[in-house]
Protein backbone atom coordinates (compact mmCIF):
# COMPACT_ATOMS: atom_id res chain seq x y z
CA UNK A 1 0.00 0.00 0.00
CA UNK A 2 2.77 2.40 0.95
CA UNK A 3 4.66 1.75 -2.28
CA UNK A 4 1.54 2.44 -4.33
CA UNK A 5 1.10 5.80 -2.62
CA UNK A 6 4.70 6.67 -3.24
CA UNK A 7 4.42 5.75 -6.91
CA UNK A 8 1.45 8.09 -7.26
CA UNK A 9 3.07 10.88 -5.27
CA UNK A 10 6.44 10.76 -6.99
CA UNK A 11 5.60 12.64 -10.23
CA UNK A 12 4.20 15.61 -8.30
CA UNK A 13 7.53 16.23 -6.62
CA UNK A 14 9.72 18.88 -8.25
CA UNK A 15 12.23 17.35 -10.62
CA UNK A 16 15.54 16.77 -8.97
CA UNK A 17 17.50 17.49 -12.16
CA UNK A 18 20.58 19.70 -12.18
CA UNK A 19 18.93 22.62 -14.01
CA UNK A 20 16.34 23.49 -11.35
CA UNK A 21 18.99 23.29 -8.65
CA UNK A 22 20.88 26.21 -10.20
CA UNK A 23 20.17 29.69 -8.84
CA UNK A 24 17.70 31.79 -10.86
CA UNK A 25 20.28 34.33 -12.01
CA UNK A 26 22.52 31.58 -13.32
CA UNK A 27 19.67 29.92 -15.22
CA UNK A 28 18.80 33.26 -16.80
CA UNK A 29 22.43 34.08 -17.61
CA UNK A 30 22.88 30.70 -19.30
CA UNK A 31 19.72 31.24 -21.39
CA UNK A 32 20.78 34.74 -22.42
CA UNK A 33 24.21 33.36 -23.32
CA UNK A 34 22.62 30.61 -25.41
CA UNK A 35 20.43 33.16 -27.16
CA UNK A 36 23.40 35.36 -28.06
CA UNK A 37 25.34 32.24 -29.12
CA UNK A 38 22.50 31.20 -31.45
CA UNK A 39 22.37 34.71 -32.82
CA UNK A 40 26.11 34.68 -33.49
CA UNK A 41 25.86 31.23 -35.09
CA UNK A 42 23.15 32.49 -37.42
CA UNK A 43 25.34 35.46 -38.40
CA UNK A 44 28.38 33.23 -38.91
CA UNK A 45 26.84 30.34 -40.76
CA UNK A 46 23.84 31.58 -42.72
CA UNK A 47 23.90 33.57 -45.93
CA UNK A 48 21.09 35.93 -44.90
CA UNK A 49 22.44 36.44 -41.40
CA UNK A 50 25.91 37.02 -42.76
CA UNK A 51 24.83 40.04 -44.81
CA UNK A 52 25.61 43.03 -42.56
CA UNK A 53 23.11 45.24 -44.41
CA UNK A 54 20.28 42.90 -43.50
CA UNK A 55 21.33 41.43 -40.18
CA UNK A 56 23.55 42.83 -37.44
CA UNK A 57 25.88 40.63 -35.40
CA UNK A 58 25.82 40.71 -31.59
CA UNK A 59 29.12 42.59 -31.59
CA UNK A 60 27.92 45.23 -34.08
CA UNK A 61 24.66 45.63 -32.20
CA UNK A 62 26.52 46.02 -28.93
CA UNK A 63 28.80 48.60 -30.46
CA UNK A 64 25.91 50.57 -31.99
CA UNK A 65 24.08 50.33 -28.63
CA UNK A 66 27.05 51.71 -26.69
CA UNK A 67 27.75 54.39 -29.31
CA UNK A 68 24.14 55.45 -29.33
CA UNK A 69 24.09 55.85 -25.56
CA UNK A 70 27.51 57.50 -25.54
CA UNK A 71 26.71 60.17 -28.13
CA UNK A 72 23.28 60.73 -26.59
CA UNK A 73 21.20 59.91 -29.67
CA UNK A 74 19.65 56.75 -28.18
CA UNK A 75 19.25 58.42 -24.79
CA UNK A 76 17.40 61.36 -26.37
CA UNK A 77 15.18 59.05 -28.43
CA UNK A 78 14.46 56.90 -25.36
CA UNK A 79 13.63 59.93 -23.25
CA UNK A 80 11.38 61.35 -25.96
CA UNK A 81 9.44 58.09 -26.24
CA UNK A 82 9.17 57.69 -22.46
CA UNK A 83 8.10 61.33 -22.06
CA UNK A 84 5.24 60.93 -24.54
CA UNK A 85 4.34 57.55 -23.08
CA UNK A 86 4.24 58.90 -19.51
CA UNK A 87 2.11 61.86 -20.61
CA UNK A 88 -0.24 59.60 -22.58
CA UNK A 89 -0.61 57.10 -19.73
CA UNK A 90 -1.07 60.02 -17.32
CA UNK A 91 -3.94 61.36 -19.43
CA UNK A 92 -5.31 57.81 -19.66
CA UNK A 93 -5.24 57.43 -15.86
CA UNK A 94 -7.06 60.72 -15.30
CA UNK A 95 -9.82 59.85 -17.76
CA UNK A 96 -10.00 56.27 -16.49
CA UNK A 97 -10.41 57.56 -12.92
CA UNK A 98 -13.28 59.77 -14.10
CA UNK A 99 -14.98 56.88 -15.91
CA UNK A 100 -14.47 54.63 -12.88
CA UNK A 101 -16.02 57.16 -10.53
CA UNK A 102 -18.96 57.58 -12.90
CA UNK A 103 -19.37 53.81 -13.30
CA UNK A 104 -19.10 53.15 -9.58
CA UNK A 105 -21.64 55.79 -8.65
CA UNK A 106 -24.34 55.10 -11.22
CA UNK A 107 -25.78 52.23 -13.20
CA UNK A 108 -25.86 54.26 -16.42
CA UNK A 109 -22.20 55.15 -15.94
CA UNK A 110 -21.43 51.47 -15.54
CA UNK A 111 -23.39 50.62 -18.71
CA UNK A 112 -21.64 53.35 -20.70
CA UNK A 113 -18.21 52.21 -19.54
CA UNK A 114 -19.00 48.58 -20.37
CA UNK A 115 -20.19 49.54 -23.86
CA UNK A 116 -17.28 51.87 -24.64
CA UNK A 117 -14.77 49.32 -23.37
CA UNK A 118 -16.34 46.58 -25.48
CA UNK A 119 -16.07 48.77 -28.59
CA UNK A 120 -12.76 50.57 -28.07
CA UNK A 121 -10.60 48.16 -26.06
CA UNK A 122 -10.13 45.57 -28.84
CA UNK A 123 -8.92 48.27 -31.25
CA UNK A 124 -5.14 48.15 -31.65
CA UNK A 125 -3.74 51.43 -30.33
CA UNK A 126 -2.40 52.60 -33.70
CA UNK A 127 -5.69 51.96 -35.49
CA UNK A 128 -7.04 55.31 -34.31
CA UNK A 129 -3.87 57.14 -35.39
CA UNK A 130 -5.04 58.17 -38.90
CA UNK A 131 -8.14 59.72 -37.34
CA UNK A 132 -6.03 61.36 -34.68
CA UNK A 133 -3.79 62.84 -37.38
CA UNK A 134 -6.86 64.19 -39.11
CA UNK A 135 -8.13 65.79 -35.91
CA UNK A 136 -4.90 66.96 -34.28
CA UNK A 137 -2.57 67.31 -37.27
CA UNK A 138 0.95 65.96 -37.43
CA UNK A 139 1.71 66.62 -33.77
CA UNK A 140 2.51 65.03 -30.45
CA UNK A 141 -1.16 65.49 -29.55
CA UNK A 142 -2.12 62.88 -32.13
CA UNK A 143 0.17 60.31 -30.49
CA UNK A 144 -1.05 61.30 -27.04
CA UNK A 145 -4.62 60.75 -28.21
CA UNK A 146 -3.75 57.29 -29.51
CA UNK A 147 -1.95 56.34 -26.26
CA UNK A 148 -4.72 57.72 -24.07
CA UNK A 149 -7.26 55.69 -26.01
CA UNK A 150 -5.12 52.58 -25.63
CA UNK A 151 -4.75 53.04 -21.86
CA UNK A 152 -8.09 54.40 -20.60
CA UNK A 153 -10.08 51.23 -21.15
CA UNK A 154 -7.89 48.59 -19.50
CA UNK A 155 -7.40 50.86 -16.49
CA UNK A 156 -11.04 51.86 -16.16
CA UNK A 157 -12.44 48.38 -16.54
CA UNK A 158 -9.95 46.87 -14.07
CA UNK A 159 -10.48 49.64 -11.52
CA UNK A 160 -14.26 49.34 -11.76
CA UNK A 161 -14.09 45.58 -11.36
CA UNK A 162 -11.71 46.08 -8.45
CA UNK A 163 -14.08 48.42 -6.61
CA UNK A 164 -17.10 46.26 -7.35
CA UNK A 165 -15.47 43.13 -5.99
CA UNK A 166 -14.15 44.59 -2.74
CA UNK A 167 -15.01 42.15 0.01
CA UNK A 168 -18.19 43.46 1.69
CA UNK A 169 -17.03 42.33 5.15
CA UNK A 170 -14.04 44.68 4.96
CA UNK A 171 -16.30 47.56 3.96
CA UNK A 172 -18.63 46.71 6.85
CA UNK A 173 -15.63 46.62 9.21
CA UNK A 174 -14.56 50.04 7.87
CA UNK A 175 -18.00 51.53 8.47
CA UNK A 176 -18.14 49.92 11.89
CA UNK A 177 -14.99 51.66 13.08
CA UNK A 178 -16.49 54.98 12.00
CA UNK A 179 -15.34 55.46 8.40
CA UNK A 180 -17.62 56.89 5.73
CA UNK A 181 -17.52 58.82 2.47
CA UNK A 182 -14.15 59.90 1.14
CA UNK A 183 -12.17 58.43 4.02
CA UNK A 184 -13.80 55.03 3.51
CA UNK A 185 -12.88 55.26 -0.20
CA UNK A 186 -9.25 56.24 0.35
CA UNK A 187 -8.52 54.08 3.39
CA UNK A 188 -10.47 50.92 2.63
CA UNK A 189 -11.80 50.72 -0.94
CA UNK A 190 -8.63 51.97 -2.63
CA UNK A 191 -6.16 49.57 -0.97
CA UNK A 192 -8.67 46.74 -1.32
CA UNK A 193 -8.88 47.43 -5.08
CA UNK A 194 -5.11 47.75 -5.47
CA UNK A 195 -4.55 44.31 -7.06
CA UNK A 196 -6.96 45.19 -9.87
CA UNK A 197 -5.49 48.67 -10.19
CA UNK A 198 -2.01 47.25 -10.66
CA UNK A 199 -3.27 44.74 -13.23
CA UNK A 200 -4.93 47.59 -15.14
CA UNK A 201 -1.82 49.73 -14.99
CA UNK A 202 0.42 46.92 -16.23
CA UNK A 203 -1.88 46.20 -19.16
CA UNK A 204 -2.20 49.90 -19.97
CA UNK A 205 1.57 50.36 -19.83
CA UNK A 206 2.11 47.48 -22.28
CA UNK A 207 -0.59 48.81 -24.64
CA UNK A 208 0.76 52.36 -24.45
CA UNK A 209 4.32 51.23 -25.09
CA UNK A 210 3.32 49.37 -28.27
CA UNK A 211 1.22 52.31 -29.40
CA UNK A 212 3.87 54.97 -28.95
CA UNK A 213 6.59 53.07 -30.80
CA UNK A 214 4.21 52.13 -33.62
CA UNK A 215 2.93 55.71 -33.90
CA UNK A 216 6.46 57.05 -34.16
CA UNK A 217 7.20 54.54 -36.89
CA UNK A 218 4.11 55.66 -38.80
CA UNK A 219 4.88 59.31 -38.92
CA UNK A 220 8.48 59.73 -38.02
CA UNK A 221 9.84 62.96 -36.66
CA UNK A 222 7.57 65.36 -34.85
CA UNK A 223 9.09 68.72 -34.06
CA UNK A 224 12.72 68.71 -33.01
CA UNK A 225 13.22 65.32 -31.40
CA UNK A 226 12.18 61.89 -32.51
CA UNK A 227 11.58 58.88 -30.28
CA UNK A 228 12.73 55.28 -30.57
CA UNK A 229 10.29 54.53 -33.39
CA UNK A 230 11.69 57.46 -35.34
CA UNK A 231 15.19 56.28 -34.53
CA UNK A 232 14.46 52.84 -36.01
CA UNK A 233 12.82 54.37 -39.06
CA UNK A 234 15.73 56.72 -39.73
CA UNK A 235 18.24 53.90 -39.30
CA UNK A 236 16.27 51.89 -41.85
CA UNK A 237 16.35 54.76 -44.36
CA UNK A 238 20.15 54.81 -44.22
CA UNK A 239 20.45 51.02 -43.86
CA UNK A 240 22.19 51.43 -40.48
CA UNK A 241 21.12 47.95 -39.53
CA UNK A 242 23.11 47.73 -36.25
CA UNK A 243 21.36 50.91 -35.07
CA UNK A 244 17.98 49.34 -35.74
CA UNK A 245 19.05 46.35 -33.67
CA UNK A 246 20.39 48.66 -30.96
CA UNK A 247 17.06 50.52 -30.73
CA UNK A 248 15.18 47.21 -30.52
CA UNK A 249 17.59 46.09 -27.81
CA UNK A 250 16.88 49.33 -25.94
CA UNK A 251 13.14 48.68 -26.12
CA UNK A 252 13.67 45.13 -24.87
CA UNK A 253 15.87 46.29 -21.99
CA UNK A 254 13.32 48.94 -21.02
CA UNK A 255 10.58 46.33 -21.14
CA UNK A 256 12.50 44.10 -18.76
CA UNK A 257 13.29 47.07 -16.51
CA UNK A 258 9.64 48.08 -16.20
CA UNK A 259 8.65 44.47 -15.65
CA UNK A 260 11.09 44.40 -12.71
CA UNK A 261 9.74 47.72 -11.45
CA UNK A 262 6.14 46.49 -11.47
CA UNK A 263 7.29 43.24 -9.88
CA UNK A 264 8.96 45.20 -7.09
CA UNK A 265 5.83 47.29 -6.58
CA UNK A 266 3.76 44.09 -6.32
CA UNK A 267 6.14 42.44 -3.90
CA UNK A 268 6.09 45.48 -1.63
CA UNK A 269 2.32 45.71 -1.61
CA UNK A 270 -0.14 43.05 -2.71
CA UNK A 271 2.22 40.06 -2.46
CA UNK A 272 3.34 41.15 0.99
CA UNK A 273 -0.28 41.56 2.06
CA UNK A 274 -1.34 38.21 0.59
CA UNK A 275 -3.74 39.92 -1.81
CA UNK A 276 -2.27 38.95 -5.16
CA UNK A 277 -4.67 37.15 -7.41
CA UNK A 278 -3.18 34.34 -9.41
Amino acid at each position, binding site marked *: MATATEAVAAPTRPRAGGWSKLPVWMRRAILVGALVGGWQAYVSFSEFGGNPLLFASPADTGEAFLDGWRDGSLARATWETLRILLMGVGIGIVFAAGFTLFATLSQIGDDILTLLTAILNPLPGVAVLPLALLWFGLSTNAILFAIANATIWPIAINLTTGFKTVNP*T*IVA*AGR*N*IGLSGVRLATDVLA*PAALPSAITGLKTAWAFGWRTVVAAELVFGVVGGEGGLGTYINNAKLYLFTPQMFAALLTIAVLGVAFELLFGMLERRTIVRWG*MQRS
Partner: protein
Amino acid sequence: MSRTALDLPAAGRATSSPVLRVEQVQLGYWTQDGFTLAVADASFEVAQREKTIVIGPSGCGKSTLLKAVAGFIRPTAGRIEVAGRERLAPGPDRAVVFQEFDQLFPWRTVLDNVAYPLRVNGWKRRAAIDRAREFVELTSLGAASHRYPHQLSGGMKQRVAIARALALDPAMLLMDEPFGSLDMITRARLQQELNRIVEQTSTTLLLVTHSMDEALTVGDKVVVLAGSPSTVREIADVRDVGPPDSPGYAAARGHLRDLLGVRHEDGETDGHGD
Protein backbone atom coordinates in the same frame (compact mmCIF):
# COMPACT_ATOMS: atom_id res chain seq x y z
CA MET B 1 -5.70 52.17 32.43
CA SER B 2 -8.41 49.65 31.59
CA ARG B 3 -11.86 51.06 31.13
CA THR B 4 -12.73 54.36 32.59
CA ALA B 5 -15.83 54.98 30.53
CA LEU B 6 -17.70 51.96 31.82
CA ASP B 7 -16.42 52.02 35.39
CA LEU B 8 -17.75 55.45 36.18
CA PRO B 9 -21.53 55.09 36.26
CA ALA B 10 -23.13 52.74 38.78
CA ALA B 11 -20.12 50.47 39.20
CA GLY B 12 -21.35 46.91 38.87
CA ARG B 13 -25.02 47.15 39.70
CA ALA B 14 -26.61 48.21 36.43
CA THR B 15 -30.16 48.66 37.57
CA SER B 16 -30.86 52.04 35.99
CA SER B 17 -30.76 52.08 32.19
CA PRO B 18 -29.80 49.17 29.95
CA VAL B 19 -26.98 49.52 27.42
CA LEU B 20 -29.18 48.11 24.69
CA ARG B 21 -32.92 48.18 24.37
CA VAL B 22 -34.56 46.34 21.48
CA GLU B 23 -38.26 47.21 21.34
CA GLN B 24 -40.75 45.32 19.17
CA VAL B 25 -38.29 45.22 16.32
CA GLN B 26 -39.39 43.88 12.98
CA LEU B 27 -36.82 43.05 10.30
CA GLY B 28 -36.88 41.84 6.75
CA TYR B 29 -35.05 41.94 3.47
CA TRP B 30 -35.82 42.36 -0.21
CA THR B 31 -35.32 39.56 -2.71
CA GLN B 32 -36.47 39.06 -6.32
CA ASP B 33 -39.75 37.72 -4.97
CA GLY B 34 -40.41 40.78 -2.86
CA PHE B 35 -40.15 41.52 0.82
CA THR B 36 -39.41 38.68 3.21
CA LEU B 37 -40.05 39.11 6.89
CA ALA B 38 -37.23 37.57 8.92
CA VAL B 39 -37.93 38.78 12.45
CA ALA B 40 -41.57 39.46 13.27
CA ASP B 41 -41.19 40.76 16.77
CA ALA B 42 -38.14 40.96 19.01
CA SER B 43 -37.89 42.75 22.33
CA PHE B 44 -35.14 42.40 24.91
CA GLU B 45 -32.67 44.41 26.93
CA VAL B 46 -28.99 44.08 27.66
CA ALA B 47 -27.78 45.49 30.94
CA GLN B 48 -24.33 46.84 31.55
CA ARG B 49 -21.64 44.12 31.73
CA GLU B 50 -24.19 41.52 30.83
CA LYS B 51 -23.30 38.82 28.34
CA THR B 52 -26.37 38.23 26.23
CA ILE B 53 -26.62 35.46 23.68
CA VAL B 54 -29.15 35.42 20.87
CA ILE B 55 -29.64 31.82 19.83
CA GLY B 56 -31.75 30.37 17.07
CA PRO B 57 -31.67 27.97 14.14
CA SER B 58 -30.12 28.95 10.81
CA GLY B 59 -32.26 31.43 8.93
CA CYS B 60 -34.17 32.68 11.98
CA GLY B 61 -32.90 36.21 11.42
CA LYS B 62 -30.52 36.38 14.37
CA SER B 63 -27.65 37.71 12.24
CA THR B 64 -30.03 40.23 10.68
CA LEU B 65 -30.97 41.34 14.18
CA LEU B 66 -27.31 41.83 15.09
CA LYS B 67 -26.73 43.80 11.87
CA ALA B 68 -29.63 46.04 12.82
CA VAL B 69 -28.16 46.66 16.27
CA ALA B 70 -24.82 47.43 14.56
CA GLY B 71 -26.62 49.94 12.34
CA PHE B 72 -26.05 48.25 8.99
CA ILE B 73 -29.77 47.76 8.32
CA ARG B 74 -32.86 49.56 9.59
CA PRO B 75 -35.73 47.83 11.33
CA THR B 76 -39.02 48.06 9.42
CA ALA B 77 -40.74 48.63 12.73
CA GLY B 78 -39.75 49.08 16.36
CA ARG B 79 -36.85 50.80 18.02
CA ILE B 80 -33.24 50.04 18.87
CA GLU B 81 -31.67 52.19 21.56
CA VAL B 82 -28.05 52.13 22.66
CA ALA B 83 -27.37 53.93 25.94
CA GLY B 84 -30.76 55.59 25.69
CA ARG B 85 -30.37 56.92 22.15
CA GLU B 86 -31.75 55.50 18.94
CA ARG B 87 -28.89 54.47 16.64
CA LEU B 88 -29.52 54.01 12.93
CA ALA B 89 -25.97 54.15 11.51
CA PRO B 90 -22.90 52.01 12.19
CA GLY B 91 -20.48 53.36 14.75
CA PRO B 92 -17.55 52.38 16.96
CA ASP B 93 -19.74 52.46 20.07
CA ARG B 94 -21.08 49.10 18.86
CA ALA B 95 -17.87 47.36 17.76
CA VAL B 96 -18.53 44.25 15.69
CA VAL B 97 -16.63 40.98 15.39
CA PHE B 98 -17.86 39.30 12.24
CA GLN B 99 -17.88 35.60 11.48
CA GLU B 100 -15.70 35.99 8.37
CA PHE B 101 -11.96 35.70 8.85
CA ASP B 102 -11.33 38.34 6.19
CA GLN B 103 -12.74 41.18 8.28
CA LEU B 104 -9.20 42.43 8.97
CA PHE B 105 -7.46 44.93 6.70
CA PRO B 106 -4.97 42.75 4.78
CA TRP B 107 -2.61 45.67 4.15
CA ARG B 108 -2.11 46.37 7.85
CA THR B 109 -0.15 44.38 10.39
CA VAL B 110 -1.87 42.92 13.45
CA LEU B 111 -0.80 45.88 15.58
CA ASP B 112 -1.83 48.34 12.90
CA ASN B 113 -5.22 46.67 12.45
CA VAL B 114 -5.86 47.41 16.11
CA ALA B 115 -4.26 50.87 16.18
CA TYR B 116 -5.76 52.25 12.97
CA PRO B 117 -9.41 52.36 14.18
CA LEU B 118 -8.19 54.30 17.21
CA ARG B 119 -6.49 56.81 14.92
CA VAL B 120 -9.74 57.14 12.97
CA ASN B 121 -11.46 57.97 16.24
CA GLY B 122 -9.14 60.77 17.16
CA TRP B 123 -6.39 59.06 19.11
CA LYS B 124 -2.85 60.42 18.78
CA ARG B 125 -0.41 58.11 17.03
CA ARG B 126 1.73 57.24 20.06
CA ALA B 127 -1.26 56.67 22.33
CA ALA B 128 -3.05 54.58 19.70
CA ILE B 129 -0.06 52.27 19.28
CA ASP B 130 0.39 51.91 23.04
CA ARG B 131 -3.25 51.02 23.51
CA ALA B 132 -3.21 48.67 20.51
CA ARG B 133 -0.19 46.88 22.00
CA GLU B 134 -2.06 46.49 25.28
CA PHE B 135 -5.02 44.79 23.56
CA VAL B 136 -2.80 42.68 21.33
CA GLU B 137 -1.18 41.39 24.53
CA LEU B 138 -4.59 40.90 26.13
CA THR B 139 -5.63 38.61 23.29
CA SER B 140 -2.29 36.71 23.47
CA LEU B 141 -1.12 37.96 20.08
CA GLY B 142 2.04 39.72 21.20
CA ALA B 143 4.35 37.47 19.21
CA ALA B 144 2.34 38.01 16.02
CA SER B 145 1.90 41.76 16.26
CA HIS B 146 4.03 42.52 13.19
CA ARG B 147 2.54 39.83 10.97
CA TYR B 148 0.02 40.51 8.25
CA PRO B 149 -3.43 38.89 8.48
CA HIS B 150 -2.73 36.37 5.69
CA GLN B 151 0.04 34.94 7.86
CA LEU B 152 -2.36 34.12 10.71
CA SER B 153 -4.60 31.14 11.41
CA GLY B 154 -8.35 31.57 11.55
CA GLY B 155 -8.41 31.59 15.33
CA MET B 156 -5.69 34.24 15.47
CA LYS B 157 -7.58 36.41 13.00
CA GLN B 158 -10.65 36.29 15.24
CA ARG B 159 -8.49 37.27 18.21
CA VAL B 160 -7.24 40.30 16.28
CA ALA B 161 -10.83 41.23 15.46
CA ILE B 162 -11.70 40.98 19.17
CA ALA B 163 -8.68 43.11 20.10
CA ARG B 164 -9.59 45.69 17.45
CA ALA B 165 -13.17 45.90 18.68
CA LEU B 166 -12.34 46.10 22.40
CA ALA B 167 -9.57 48.66 21.99
CA LEU B 168 -12.25 51.08 20.79
CA ASP B 169 -13.81 50.89 24.25
CA PRO B 170 -17.29 50.33 22.82
CA ALA B 171 -20.51 50.64 24.79
CA MET B 172 -21.04 47.06 23.73
CA LEU B 173 -19.32 44.33 21.78
CA LEU B 174 -21.35 42.66 19.04
CA MET B 175 -20.32 39.23 17.79
CA ASP B 176 -21.89 37.42 14.86
CA GLU B 177 -21.09 33.70 15.21
CA PRO B 178 -17.45 34.70 15.69
CA PHE B 179 -16.21 31.14 16.13
CA GLY B 180 -18.57 29.52 13.65
CA SER B 181 -15.84 28.82 11.09
CA LEU B 182 -13.33 27.40 13.55
CA ASP B 183 -12.58 23.80 14.41
CA MET B 184 -14.08 22.65 17.71
CA ILE B 185 -10.84 22.64 19.67
CA THR B 186 -9.97 26.20 18.70
CA ARG B 187 -13.56 27.21 19.27
CA ALA B 188 -13.68 25.87 22.81
CA ARG B 189 -10.39 27.57 23.62
CA LEU B 190 -11.53 30.90 22.21
CA GLN B 191 -14.83 30.72 24.10
CA GLN B 192 -12.93 30.39 27.36
CA GLU B 193 -10.59 33.16 26.39
CA LEU B 194 -13.49 35.38 25.40
CA ASN B 195 -14.93 34.87 28.88
CA ARG B 196 -11.64 35.89 30.45
CA ILE B 197 -11.21 38.97 28.24
CA VAL B 198 -14.80 40.11 28.65
CA GLU B 199 -14.47 39.78 32.45
CA GLN B 200 -11.17 41.63 32.45
CA THR B 201 -12.52 44.52 30.41
CA SER B 202 -16.05 44.57 31.93
CA THR B 203 -17.47 44.40 28.43
CA THR B 204 -21.17 44.33 27.66
CA LEU B 205 -21.61 41.58 25.08
CA LEU B 206 -24.25 40.65 22.54
CA LEU B 207 -23.32 37.42 20.78
CA VAL B 208 -25.29 35.58 18.12
CA THR B 209 -24.85 31.84 17.77
CA HIS B 210 -26.63 28.62 16.87
CA SER B 211 -24.59 26.64 19.36
CA MET B 212 -26.33 25.81 22.65
CA ASP B 213 -22.99 25.10 24.33
CA GLU B 214 -21.59 28.45 23.26
CA ALA B 215 -24.70 30.12 24.66
CA LEU B 216 -24.38 28.31 28.01
CA THR B 217 -20.61 28.66 28.47
CA VAL B 218 -20.37 32.31 27.45
CA GLY B 219 -23.76 33.80 28.30
CA ASP B 220 -25.40 35.34 31.35
CA LYS B 221 -28.68 35.53 29.51
CA VAL B 222 -30.02 33.70 26.48
CA VAL B 223 -32.58 35.15 24.09
CA VAL B 224 -34.19 32.30 22.16
CA LEU B 225 -35.31 33.31 18.70
CA ALA B 226 -37.36 30.84 16.65
CA GLY B 227 -40.07 30.55 14.05
CA SER B 228 -40.32 31.88 10.53
CA PRO B 229 -40.67 34.82 10.70
CA SER B 230 -39.18 34.56 14.14
CA THR B 231 -40.20 35.86 17.52
CA VAL B 232 -38.52 35.78 20.92
CA ARG B 233 -39.59 32.51 22.52
CA GLU B 234 -37.95 32.98 25.86
CA ILE B 235 -35.37 35.03 27.67
CA ALA B 236 -33.53 32.77 30.09
CA ASP B 237 -31.05 33.61 32.82
CA VAL B 238 -28.22 31.09 32.49
CA ARG B 239 -25.75 32.74 34.86
CA ASP B 240 -25.88 29.89 37.36
CA VAL B 241 -26.15 26.76 35.20
CA GLY B 242 -22.73 25.56 36.32
CA PRO B 243 -19.97 23.78 34.40
CA PRO B 244 -20.75 21.60 31.35
CA ASP B 245 -20.77 18.36 33.39
CA SER B 246 -23.17 19.62 36.06
CA PRO B 247 -26.86 18.68 36.30
CA GLY B 248 -27.87 22.35 36.06
CA TYR B 249 -26.09 22.66 32.74
CA ALA B 250 -27.73 19.52 31.37
CA ALA B 251 -31.16 20.76 32.45
CA ALA B 252 -30.63 24.16 30.87
CA ARG B 253 -29.38 22.54 27.69
CA GLY B 254 -32.39 20.24 27.56
CA HIS B 255 -34.68 23.21 28.03
CA LEU B 256 -33.00 25.14 25.20
CA ARG B 257 -33.19 22.09 22.99
CA ASP B 258 -36.94 21.83 23.56
CA LEU B 259 -37.44 25.51 22.83
CA LEU B 260 -35.46 25.26 19.60
CA GLY B 261 -37.33 22.11 18.61
CA VAL B 262 -34.20 19.98 18.27
CA ARG B 263 -35.11 16.29 18.41
CA HIS B 264 -31.73 14.65 17.92
CA GLU B 265 -28.25 15.81 18.69
CA ASP B 266 -26.78 16.24 15.26
CA GLY B 267 -25.58 19.74 14.51
CA GLU B 268 -23.51 20.45 17.58
CA THR B 269 -19.78 20.09 17.30
CA ASP B 270 -18.63 21.82 20.45
CA GLY B 271 -17.47 18.62 22.06
CA HIS B 272 -19.86 18.96 25.00
CA GLY B 273 -22.52 16.72 23.46
CA ASP B 274 -24.04 13.90 25.45
